[in-house]
C-alpha cells in the first residue's frame, strides 16, 4: 500500500504539470535554472557561489552570511565540508559506500530514502509509468535515484547541497511550475530570499552584530531555492506536500496566521477530525471532493490554477497578495496614495477589479463551487473584499494621524534627534532612484536617513531592528496595526475563521487605532506645553 | 615483514614465518626494554631499617558518594558493601592503600612468590580488593560463584585480557610491567579489584586499621608513595636510619 501511495504521490505532481506541459510547444531542454529570466546583476548577487565570504542581495558587501545560510541558500553560500574529503568517493563513483557509511552516521536519512520513491522508482505500475515519463524526457534509465545522483558534483568532485535545479533535472514540469511564481511577483516562494536581503535593516542588523537574531527570518525565507521545504528530505513525498501540515511551519504567527485561521475554521476542523479518511496519495487533479477530501486543504485551493487544472505552485491565483499591498480602489488621505514608495520589492497597488483579478476571482469560484453554491462563494469572497477595504481605510486613517503628527513637528524625539534609518549610508549608494522612487532616493541622499519612514513597506523596520529612539512608540503602534492586526483579520476572514477575524484582527486594530489617537493627542499636548514654556 | 592475505582467514605457513619474525622482533624489543627500565640493583641489605606507619583518611564517609540504588534489580547488591573506601572508625586508618617507595634504586632481592597470589570471586566481589605484586608475579584468579563472570582488565603495557568464566574456573596471568590495573566484571559493575604491579620489592597494602610495614630498606632518604583508588596519590619523604624502625603517618585530607 505504501508503495502505491508513493507512486500516487509522485504522479500527482507529474499529472498536473504534464497536462499543462502538453499544451505548450515542446521546449528545447535547457538545464533547469532557478534564476531564469533574471538580470545579470541579480544572478551575480543571488546565484553565484561565494561561500561564506560575503552576503547576498544588493547589500552583500555590508555583511557576511550566518553559517547556516549555506544550507538555506546553497547556490550562493554552500561550501563542502573540510573535515572529510569526499572527492575520492565521487571520483570513483562508489555509490555503495555512501549508504554503507551513512546508514550508521545518519541512519534516519538512509531509512527515509529507502522508503521513498527514489529508492524504488518502479515499484508500482503507477510509479513505473511516471518514472518512464521521466526516463523518456531525460533520456536515462532510472532504476534507483541514489545519494550520488543528487549530492555528487562530478564536475568539481565534491559534495553539493541540492537545490531545486537538481530536482528539476528529472522533475522538470514541477520545476517549471515553481519557476512561474516569478510571473506574479512577490510575495511568493521563489523570491522569498529577497524579502530579507533587499530590505536595509537586515544588513544593518548584521553590521551591528545581530545577524543571528535574523535566524527566525532566514529559516522560512530559505524556501527560495529548495524543494525540501514542503517535500521534506529524504523521503520527498508528494503526499506529504499535499497535507496542510506541510505549510504551517512557516505560514503561522502574527503576520500570517494561516495555520491558526485554517486550522480552527470549519474546513480545518473537519480535516483534523477526518484526517485518516483523506487520500493524500491521489494527485490533486484527481481528488474527488467529498470522497477523497471532505474539506479542502491549503493545497487544494491555492494550487488550483484554472479550468480544472492544478499548478505546482500556490501563488498564481492570489489577489490580495497577503494583504500588505493597498488596493487601488480606495481614496487615501495619507501618503498611501503615493504607494509604492520606498523600495519596490512588492507590486504596485492592486486593482481588485482589474481584468486579471476578475478572472482570478472566477478561478476561485471554480474551486469553491466544488462544494458551495456559486452565489454563496461569490458573496463570501465579496465580503472578504469589503473587509479588506475597511481594514485598509482604517490603516490609512491611522497612517494619516502619524504623518500629520510628524508634519506638525510633534514627533518626540524628532527624527533629527534619533538614530538614522537603518543602513541609510548604504541605501542611496546601492539602490537606484528608479528602485527607490525619486523622492525617497533624494531624501536618503540629502537627509542621510534622519527622517521618519512610516507605513508599508519600509516603515516596518521597527519590527526587525531596534535603534536609539527609532522608531518611536507611535510608529510601532502603527506597524502593529497594519502589519499584524490587519493581516490577522484578513487571514481570519479569508480562511473563514470568525474568531481570528474579529478578536485577532478587527478588534485589536480598532484598539490600536485608539491608542494611536491618544498617543498622538498626548504628544501634541506635550509639544504645545513645551513650546508655551519655552516662549515664556 | 612479509605477510600474505588470504581471502578467508589464516594462511598457516605465512603466519608461521611472520611469528618467527615476530619472535625475533620481540626478543630485540624486550632486550631494549630491560635496559630502558629504571635500574634496580639487588644488593644484600645488612643494616636495613624498617618503616612502619599508618595511612589515615580524616573525613566523612558521605564525602565519597555510595550509590546504594545502583543495580537495584539485583538482590545481592544491597548486601555487598562497597569496598571503594573503607576506614577504621577508631583511628581513621584507611584500608587498601598501597604504600611503596618510589625512587629506590638498590635494595633487597626481588623475591617472586612461587605460590601464586590469589584473587577470588565470592558473592560477586573480589577478595582481596587490592593486591600489590612485584613485576613478574603470576596471579591466579578464581571463580567461586555459581553465576557467570568475566574477568576484564584494562592494562596497556601488561597484556590485557577479558575472559568469560564460570564456577571453579582458575585463570593464571603473569604481570611483567609496573602498572596499576583495574580488574572488573562487566556483569557485576559494582565489583572491582586492583592489581598494583611494582618493580621493586618495597611495598605493602594497608590493613583494615591502615597499618603497613616495609622492612630491610637500605638507609637513606626516600620518597614514599601512597596510592588509593578513590583518594589518589600522596607522597612523603622519609629518612630511613640503619637498623631502626621509623614510624610515619600519611594523612589524606578531606576535600
Amino acid at each position: 500500500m505504501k508503495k502505491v501511495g508513493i507512486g500516487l504521490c509522485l504522479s500527482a505532481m507529474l499529472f498536473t504539470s504534464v497536462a499543462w506541459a502538453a499544451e505548450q510547444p515542446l521546449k528545447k531542454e535547457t538545464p533547469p535554472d532557478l534564476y531564469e529570466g533574471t538580470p545579470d546583476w541579480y544572478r551575480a548577487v543571488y546565484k553565484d557561489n561565494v561561500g561564506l565570504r560575503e552576503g547576498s542581495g544588493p547589500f552583500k558587501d555590508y555583511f557576511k552570511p550566518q553559517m547556516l545560510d549555506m544550507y538555506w541558500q546553497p547556490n550562493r553560500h554552500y561550501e563542502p565540508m573540510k573535515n572529510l574529503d569526499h572527492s575520492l568517493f565521487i571520483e570513483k563513483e562508489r555509490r555503495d559506500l555512501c549508504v554503507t557509511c551513512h546508514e550508521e552516521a545518519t541512519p534516519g536519512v538512509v531509512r527515509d530514502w529507502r522508503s521513498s520513491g527514489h529508492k524504488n522508482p518502479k515499484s508500482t505500475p503507477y510509479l513505473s509509468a511516471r518514472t518512464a515519463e521521466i526516463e523518456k524526457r531525460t533520456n536515462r534509465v532510472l532504476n534507483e535515484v541514489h545519494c550520488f545522483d543528487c549530492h555528487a558534483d562530478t564536475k568539481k568532485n565534491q559534495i553539493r547541497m541540492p537545490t531545486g535545479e537538481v530536482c528539476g533535472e528529472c522533475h522538470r514540469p514541477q520545476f517549471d511550475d515553481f519557476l512561474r511564481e516569478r510571473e506574479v511577483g512577490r510575495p511568493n516562494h521563489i523570491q522569498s530570499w529577497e524579502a530579507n536581503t533587499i530590505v536595509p535593516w537586515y544588513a544593518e542588523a548584521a553590521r551591528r552584530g545581530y545577524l543571528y537574531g535574523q535566524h527566525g527570518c532566514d529559516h522560512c525565507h530559505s524556501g527560495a531555492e529548495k524543494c525540501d521545504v514542503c517535500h521534506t528530505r529524504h523521503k520527498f513525498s508528494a503526499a506529504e506536500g499535499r497535507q496542510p501540515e506541510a505549510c504551517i511551519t512557516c505560514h503561522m504567527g502574527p503576520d500570517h496566521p494561516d495555520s491558526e485561521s485554517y486550522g480552527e475554521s470549519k474546513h480545518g476542523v473537519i480535516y483534523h477530525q477526518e484526517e485518516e479518511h483523506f487520500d493524500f496519495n491521489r494527485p490533486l487533479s484527481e481528488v474527488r471532493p467529498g470522497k477523497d477530501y471532505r474539506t479542502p486543504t491549503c493545497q487544494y485551493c491555492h494550487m488550483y490554477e484554472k479550468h480544472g487544472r492544478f499548478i505546482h505552485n500556490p501563488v498564481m491565483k492570489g489577489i490580495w497578495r497577503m494583504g500588505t499591498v493597498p488596493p487601488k480602489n480606495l481614496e487615501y488621505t495619507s501618503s498611501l496614495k503615493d504607494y509604492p514608495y520606498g523600495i519596490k520589492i512588492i507590486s504596485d497597488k492592486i486593482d481588485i477589479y482589474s481584468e486579471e483579478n476578475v478572472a482570478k476571482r472566477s478561478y476561485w469560484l471554480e474551486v469553491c463551487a466544488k462544494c458551495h453554491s456559486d452565489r454563496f462563494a461569490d458573496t463570501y469572497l465579496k465580503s472578504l473584499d469589503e473587509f479588506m477595504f475597511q481594514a485598509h481605510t482604517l490603516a490609512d486613517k491611522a497612517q494619516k494621524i502619524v504623518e500629520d503628527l510628524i508634519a506638525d513637528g510633534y514627533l518626540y524625539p524628532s527624527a533629527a534627534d534619533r538614530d538614522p534609518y537603518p543602513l541609510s549610508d548604504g541605501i542611496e549608494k546601492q539602490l537606484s532612484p528608479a528602485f527607490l522612487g525619486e523622492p525617497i532616493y533624494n531624501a536618503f541622499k540629502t537627509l542621510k536617513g534622519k527622517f521618519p519612514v512610516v507605513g508599508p513597506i519600509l516603515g516596518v523596520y521597527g519590527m526587525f531592528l531596534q535603534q536609539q529612539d527609532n522608531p518611536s512608540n507611535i510608529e510601532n503602534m502603527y506597524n502593529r496595526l497594519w502589519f499584524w492586526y490587519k493581516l490577522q483579520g484578513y487571514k481570519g476572514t479569508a480562511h473563514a475563521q470568525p474568531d481570528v477575524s474579529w478578536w485577532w484582527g478587527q478588534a485589536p486594530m480598532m484598539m490600536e487605532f485608539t491608542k494611536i489617537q491618544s498617543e498622538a493627542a498626548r504628544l501634541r499636548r506635550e509639544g504645545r506645553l513645551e513650546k508655551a514654556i519655552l516662549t515664556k | 615483514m612479509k605477510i600474505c592475505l588470504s581471502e578467508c582467514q589464516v594462511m598457516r605457513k605465512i603466519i608461521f614465518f611472520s611469528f618467527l619474525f615476530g619472535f625475533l622482533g620481540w626478543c630485540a624489543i624486550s632486550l631494549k626494554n630491560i635496559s630502558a627500565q629504571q635500574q634496580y640493583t639487588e644488593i644484600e641489605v645488612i643494616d636495613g631499617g624498617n618503616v612502619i606507619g599508618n595511612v589515615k583518611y580524616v573525613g566523612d564517609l558521605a564525602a565519597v558518594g555510595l550509590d546504594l540504588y545502583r543495580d537495584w534489580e539485583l538482590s545481592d547488591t544491597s548486601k555487598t558493601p562497597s569496598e571503594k573506601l573503607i576506614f577504621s572508625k577508631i583511628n581513621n586508618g584507611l584500608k587498601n592503600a598501597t604504600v611503596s617507595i618510589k625512587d629506590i634504586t638498590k635494595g633487597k632481592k626481588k623475591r617472586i612468590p612461587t605460590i601464586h597470589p590469589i584473587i577470588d570471586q565470592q558473592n560477586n566481589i573480589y577478595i582481596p580488593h587490592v593486591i600489590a605484586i612485584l613485576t613478574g608475579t603470576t596471579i591466579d584468579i578464581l571463580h567461586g560463584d555459581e553465576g557467570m563472570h568475566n574477568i576484564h582488565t584494562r592494562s596497556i603495557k601488561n597484556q590485557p585480557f577479558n575472559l568469560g568464566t564460570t564456577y571453579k574456573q582458575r585463570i593464571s596471568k603473569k604481570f611483567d610491567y609496573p602498572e596499576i590495573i583495574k580488574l572488573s566484571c562487566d556483569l557485576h559493575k559494582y565489583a572491582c579489584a586492583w592489581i598494583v604491579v611494582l618493580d621493586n620489592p618495597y611495598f605493602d597494602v594497608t590493613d583494615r586499621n591502615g597499618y603497613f610495614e616495609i622492612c630491610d630498606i637500605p638507609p637513606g632518604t626516600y620518597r614514599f608513595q601512597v596510592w588509593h583508588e578513590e583518594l589518589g596519590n600522596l607522597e612523603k619523604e622519609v629518612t630511613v636510619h640503619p637498623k631502626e624502625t621509623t614510624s610515619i603517618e600519611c594523612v589524606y585530607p578531606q576535600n
Partner: protein
Amino acid sequence: MKPKVLLDKIGLWSATTVASAALMLSVMPMTASAINVPTEVTEVGKDTYKKYCSPCHGEEGKGDGPLARSLLPKPRDFSRGAYKFRTTPSGSLPTDEDIYRTIFYGVPNSTMIPWDILTEEQRLSVIPVLKSFSEAFEVRKPDASVNVGLEIRPTERTIAEGKKIYEEKLECWKCHGVEGRGDGPSASEQEDDFGFPIKPFDFTTGKFKGGNSPTDVYLRFTTGLNGTPMPSFAKELSDEQRWYLTHYVLSLIKPEETQNK
C-alpha cells in the same frame, strides 16, 4: 534421444568447467598476491591517515576527530592498542593481517566503511601509523593467531547445544537478550574501556561486525572483543562448544523488514 541427452550433459559439464576455471582465475590473483606491510611509518601512510582516518579517529589516534562527536559507536581510540577484531587471544595485540582485514572489509553496523576504495599501498601504509599511536606495540607483540581447526557443520543438535550455552551456561542473554536483540537486563549499563556506553550486539540484524562467516563468529567467541565487555570464552568453552554457540547465534538472524524490500 540418447545422443541428445549425452550432448546436453557434455554441454553442461563443459560449461561448468569453463565457468569454474574462469572463476578460479578471477579469484586466484587476489588471494595469492603477497603484500608488504611497511615496518616504518611512511609519508604515504601519514597522508592517508590524515586524509581519510583522522576525521573520525583524530590526528593523534585518540578517537577524537572532528566527526567523532556525532558518531555512535565512537571511533576506535588507538592509544590503548585494543583492537576488537583479531585472530589473536584475548587482550593480545592484533596481527598486521587483522588490522588490514578490518581496514579492507570495514566494520558493518558502523561508519567504518570497507576502504577498498584506497589503493592497497595506502591501506597497508596506514597500519604502522595506527601502531605508532599506542605504546603497547612497543612493549608487547601480538600472540600467535588461534588455531581455528576444523569447522563443525551446523545441525539441529549443535544449535540446541548452543542454545543451552547461550541461555544457561554463559547467560549470554544477560546482555544480548533472550532473542539476541541486544536488549538483556544488563545491556544498558555496559561500557567500553574508554568509558563510552556500548550496546551489546543485536544478532538479529545479521550484520556481524567482525564478519558473517561461521569462522568469524567463532573467532569472536575465542578471542573476545578487546576494549569491550565481550570476553573470550577460550578458557570456559571447548572448541566444539564454541562452534555450537556460533551455530546458535547465527540461527538468531532475522533481518529488518526494510532489508527484504
